[in-house]
């Protein structure tokens, strides 16, 4: 398959499958794949030809197809809490809202740098939590909140369901006055999900 010379400058819009060059002249980089010695784009983007390092890559124009990766910051809703572990329904990865969801697990040992006795002091079902993915082992996304930017961003009263407000080091329900404990993120109550 021949490659037209018109495609030879950087910044050209390319679509999945479009040939970018051959492996004899370029090293294939992000956004490309090689089939029978020809480098093709695999996403909608713009071609980037690095003639100095002889590399070709595609800069994506479509931001989609996201799955949690180690290091991703995710936002989810706590669906189940046990003394040792909480289950989180992840609905946002980075800045992208998902159309479906992924399940994450938060273990007590990954909540704080200090020792935490029970998960019930950390979060409750229904809370919106921000966390970081630390592992994908055993077919599950393991999360951590060991940072002041991570933790519960919105919590709901376990008695009446009202959104809790920060009160000193704890949280207080503005409707019924119940005091509750959470591991809150630094932007609790003001963060945008």
């Amino acid at each position, binding site marked *: *398959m021949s490659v037209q010379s018109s495609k030879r400058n950087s910044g050209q*819009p390319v*679509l*999945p*499958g*479009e*040939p970018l060059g051959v492996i004899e002249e370029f090293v294939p980089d992000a956004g490309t*794949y090689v*089939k029978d010695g020809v480098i*093709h784009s*695999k*996403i*909608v983007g713009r071609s980037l030809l690095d003639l100095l390092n002889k590399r070709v890559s595609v800069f*994506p*124009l*479509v*931001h*989609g*197809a*996201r*799955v949690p990766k180690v290091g991703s910051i995710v936002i989810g809703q706590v669906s189940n809490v046990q003394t040792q572990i909480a289950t989180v329904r992840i609905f946002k990865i980075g800045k992208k809202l*998902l*159309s*479906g*969801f*992924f*399940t994450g697990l938060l273990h007590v040992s990954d909540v704080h740098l200090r020792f935490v006795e029970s998960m019930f002091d950390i979060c409750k079902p229904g809370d919106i939590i921000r966390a970081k993915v630390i592992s994908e082992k055993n*077919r599950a996304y393991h999360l951590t909140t060991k940072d002041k930017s991570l933790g519960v961003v919105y919590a709901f009263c376990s008695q009446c369901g009202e959104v809790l407000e920060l009160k000193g080091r704890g949280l207080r329900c503005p409707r019924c006055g119940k005091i509750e404990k959470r591991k809150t993120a630094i932007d609790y109550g003001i963060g945008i999900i």
Partner: protein
Amino acid sequence: MSQKTEKLIDKKGLRLDGRKPDELRPIKIEVGVLSNADGSAYIEQGKNKILAAVYGPKELHPKHMALPDRMVLRCRYHMAPFSVQERKSPAPSRREIELSKVIREAIEPAIFVEYYPRTAIDVFVEVLQADGSTRCTSITAASLALADAGVPMRDLVVACSAGKVEDTIVLDLMDAEDKVGSADVPVAYMPNLGVITLLQMDGILTPEEFEKAVNLAIEGCKKIYALQKEALKAKYVSVKEVEE
């Protein structure tokens, strides 16, 4: 149908809608028409009007259906009750279940399914108005919706049909020709790789006619591919330039 099935090809060699035997129906494609979906596309090919939407990749439930090394591609082809002259029951028919499988198998070779293990991706194809060769039009739309969703793909998939009507091999059959004609050959094709991902034949053709039909369908695919490219670039390239 109001059309009388007297002659599908007239003395001048033109078809019922005035097309030449190797001419496509007019095609209009739009990408990213649904804001809720991760990717979507709308296509009009003659009187065919088809909407495709992609959701995912996402976690697969029930979990035991997930595959440890790859993504599960799920496809649903559905015809709206008002898509044909006689009301079509909205329940999935035998034909729709079969076409769902056919479309899935035609687009799956283009997707890097191994990139997203244990996840699923849903492709919904909704036929709003049907006028023959809907499986081909659906494949064209579904592959655009997948590209719009940002799913890494080996190539876009384009599909087009060819067939035999009154001893002539014609391109892009419409409903009247599909019903009365003697053969129908839908072909799905990856234009950059030169790979056929779907090839069916319904009817009787001699080996020579079959070869001619397949080549004609591939030519049609290449013409539709040019329109697919145009539609995708119209969404991504022009919008980005305005934002800058």
